């Protein structure tokens, strides 16, 4: 699929140990530009760990990870530079509670990209408008609902103009009525051609937006394919088992 497009992520034989616990057992994967890759699988399968290894929030134990051709596992690579190209959205939002929504968004562009205060402010407001929260610019995180906080977190990730965004279970800490507003924002991003890696169990969203699904279990990719193939005709017995439980 899409071999003519730019290669964004290449993972070669990735292993991760926590002490003696073997979490990732030799993953190989390629992600191309504008792909939306959804990762599903039972809890403890290593989905989040895999995602977090890709921007070295977890140190990979073994293997190679190339982000846009840069080997990020090499010690001499400036991981902060790589991270500016990767947006990350967390399950627990992780907004900075001492800063307003707008300040949260401006922080990294000003301090990492050395953008001017004025430009950052302008972009921050544009992004808040994009996620539908322009009137909440001066609200502190504890004055926002969970769904609003997560949308601010997405805007914060976008402010760095990343080449790809990782979503680590972005909706699982939210009340049901707030999931939609976050998924809508993610849907729009996918339509704009953003490269996205999503760990999520929102089957509706995956069916609509994802171009590819990876099914992980016990640290291995046991199945991979388009949503149509995987969701309608799962091949692996564990995939069938898992899907029957969450649908």
């Amino acid at each position, binding site marked *: 699929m899409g071999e003519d497009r730019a290669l964004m992520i290449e993972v070669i034989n990735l292993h991760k140990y926590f002490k003696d616990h073997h979490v990732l057992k030799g993953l190989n994967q390629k992600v191309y530009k504008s792909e939306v890759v959804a990762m599903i699988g039972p809890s403890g399968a290593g989905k989040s760990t895999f995602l977090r290894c890709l921007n070295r929030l977890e140190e990979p134990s073994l293997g190679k990870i190339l982000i846009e051709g840069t080997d990020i596992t090499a010690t001499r690579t400036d991981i902060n*530079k790589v991270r500016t190209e990767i947006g*990350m959205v967390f399950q627990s939002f*992780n907004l900075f509670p001492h800063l307003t929504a707008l300040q949260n968004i401006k*922080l*990294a562009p000003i301090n*990492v990209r050395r953008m001017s205060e004025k430009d950052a402010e302008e972009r921050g407001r544009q992004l808040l408008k994009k996620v539908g929260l322009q009137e909440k610019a001066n609200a502190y995180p*504890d004055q926002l609902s969970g769904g*609003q906080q997560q949308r601010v977190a997405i805007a*914060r990730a976008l402010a760095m103009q990343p080449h790809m965004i990782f979503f680590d279970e972005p909706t699982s800490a939210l*009340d049901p009525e707030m999931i939609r507003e976050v998924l809508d924002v993610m849907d729009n991003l996918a339509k704009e051609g953003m490269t996205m890696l999503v760990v999520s169990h929102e089957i509706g969203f995956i069916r609509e937006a994802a171009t590819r699904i990876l099914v992980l279990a016990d640290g291995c990719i046991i199945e991979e394919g388009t949503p149509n193939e995987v969701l309608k005709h799962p091949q692996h017995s564990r995939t069938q088992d898992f899907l029957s439980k969450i649908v």
Partner: protein
Amino acid sequence: MMPEMVPSPPTGGNKTRPSWRERFGHVPWFRRYEFLGGLFLLLLALAFFLPPFGRPQSTLVWIEIAVYFLAVLFWVGIILSDIEKPNWMKAIAAVLIVLVFGWLFYQYSGARWDKLAHAFFNWEILSATGSYGSTTSAWIELLAGLWLTLQLAFFSIIFGTVLGLILAVLRNLHDPVLNFFLTIWVDFFRAIPIIVLMMLIYYAFPYLGITLSGVVSGVLTLTLNSSAYISEIFRAGIESIHYGQVEASRALGLTTMQTMRLVILPQAIRVVMPPLASNYVAMLKDTAICSVIAILELLKTAITLQSWLANPTPLVAATALYLLILIPMARFSSVLENRMKARGVSRALASKKG
């Protein structure tokens, strides 16, 4: 109790004797007005049999007085703990216990109250000049002592905070070897009483050839002592920040230093402020210990004046000065603490809502 007086239960079963409560209502006996009124009269009568004015000589009399006070406390406690008693009665009970305590103290402490004004509040002696060979009045001396106390506190706070911050930052490097030494430092200075450390530095170190002046020893002692406490406060503040905050900033590409400066420290300072403030209040109190190494701060000045003037008014005045400064500060630090607790609650509620 006569069985025929009792209305027989409708079922006519074997239950012949109703319980006491069924007859007299559910109020327990000790909360009933019959009991409380009787006890009140008894206490009133007993008051006339209490020993006469003056310090009691035998232990038996002391016990008698103590029992009387406990009985009054019991009576008051019953009234105050019953929500059904009217408010005016509670007010009377509250005033009564304070009055009885004051009266018993007045009667039996053995104090000569006629001397109170002369001994404790002798303003003439305090404002007179030259009464003991000095040209200034005792007031001025006391104020000079207060100024030295404040300076001692100021320098100890500055140095203690800087040292504590350095220790906390070193702690935060999580180096096992360094941590070993830091733990020894913190444990040692938290375990040793300030006054012992001060005596060691001031009286024992000169035998080694290290001679420090009184003020330097005092500030050094308070600095060393508080550095241990302050470093623990800072460490707790830094550790209280959720790890997700660090991850989020690293994912945005902030460096370690930027994460510290822009994300961790602004949050940690809010957590750290209340315990830090109460630690500073405690340090101001601890400067009084410097009086044992001949520093003429407020307490030492007061003690010296008292022995010169043979009158404890300077000590009373010094106590008043301490209270004047420390009560507002203590109040302020507890306001800070409560505000943070309240904020914590509102934040917890907000996140629950979300």
